[in-house]
């Protein structure tokens, strides 16, 4: 039984450690905030210029001057601070954010990431993704293991334009979790009832398998 989006977000939340400063990408990564373990206090950064994002506002708290990087209305906390985009990316580029969790179109077995552009099709832009993957200490990708047409997204080499090279440290997909280091990729966890064999079939990248899964 493959993981749901919620399962993936819950698994990603285990990467959070007490005191971490974290940037969550748009989409599934945003859900991770709902599963922060008890006793773990993390501070969420939003790259449009805020540290310590609060939850979505109540109806009467909505403030057009207070949004996250996904342009959603949010709230502030007692410990919040605001700053310019230059200061925000100085924080990101300077390695002060502990963890970034974001989505992906493709990841290579050496940790290359493609998540911003499909040539000839989509003209949206990379936003802050290239800065985040270049600057944040640890980068975690949450993604469906395969594209809608069934093709592999975890590849030997990305075929789409890259967001960053050798930047992904961990992939959490619906079939399991892969750790990527300089030595290569390793499958370290499996979703319930998913077999190593099934993962191999659905993956183009080479990866080794952690002992406890064999």
């Amino acid at each position, binding site marked *: 039984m493959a993981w749901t989006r919620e399962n993936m977000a819950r698994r990603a939340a285990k990467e959070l450690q007490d005191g971490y400063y974290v940037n969550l990408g748009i989409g599934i990564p945003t859900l991770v905030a709902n599963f922060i373990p008890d006793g773990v206090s993390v501070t969420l950064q*939003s*790259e*449009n*210029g*805020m540290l310590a994002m609060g*939850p*979505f*506002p*109540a*109806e009467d708290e*909505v*403030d*057009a*001057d*207070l*949004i*996250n*990087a*996904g*342009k*959603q*209305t*949010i709230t*502030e906390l007692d410990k919040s601070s*605001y*700053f*310019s*985009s*230059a200061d*925000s*990316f*100085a924080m*990101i*580029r300077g390695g002060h954010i502990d963890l970034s969790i974001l989505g992906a179109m493709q990841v290579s077995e050496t940790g*290359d990431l493609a998540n911003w552009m499909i040539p000839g099709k989509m*003209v*949206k*832009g*990379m*936003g*802050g*993704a*290239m*800065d985040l993957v*270049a*600057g944040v200490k640890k980068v975690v990708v949450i993604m469906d293991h395969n594209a809608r047409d069934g093709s592999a997204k975890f590849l030997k080499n990305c075929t789409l*334009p*890259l*967001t*960053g*090279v*050798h930047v992904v440290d961990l992939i959490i997909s619906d079939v399991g979790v892969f750790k990527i280091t300089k030595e290569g990729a390793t499958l370290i966890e499996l979703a319930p009832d998913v077999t190593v064999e099934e993962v191999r079939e659905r993956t183009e990248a080479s990866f080794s398998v952690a002992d406890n899964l064999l």
Partner: protein
Amino acid sequence: MSKIYPNAAAALEGILFDGMTIMAGGFGLCGIPENLILALRGSGTKDITAISNNAGVDDFGLGYLLTTRQIKKMISSYVGENKEFERQYLAEELELEFNPQGTLAERIRAGGAGIPGFFTKTGVGTIIADGKEHKDFDGETYILETGLIADVSIVKAYKADTEGNLIYRKTARNFNPMMATAGKVTVIEAEEIVEVGTLDPDQIHTPGIYVQRIIQSVNLEKRIEQRTVRSEG
């Protein structure tokens, strides 16, 4: 020499010309200079190179200037909300230069700070690095990015005093402070204009030296793109 102008059109008088470069503050539709964008549309200035993190939506913000075809080129990090933008771009009617958001922010900060170039890790190994100088520092590779300045910067502030000292509000700050430093002429629209001495000197976000012209914002829409609320109870 008062920096206060009676309205947006007056504040842009004499500083606009076809082919000029304009920086416009804001992130999405948050903290954008609504009045000055409208006045820019009214001016009919053409062939603008617009430096702005986003391109507005079809019927608001910089989208206005796309509809009127006043913009020749955009330098942005993300334009996903604007269909007209995508149409013009795919039809090759519009030039587009994507910058990573942090690189864009830093290029503007550098332009205002007299720094013509800086090295960053962002974009190394991607198409962003194509044609750019690469250099290693301590065994890691970086690329050279250049500073950006504009003929005019249009900036949205929360409060301005009559000397041009500015304060921004919450995430409406975003690109506004850097752009205020990087315009040869910087024009501010503020929700409130106050007398000097009202703002705490320790709490000025943009010192008045960067500000040449100021207007009072009127009829602000402050449109929200993603109105997300939590369910009560």
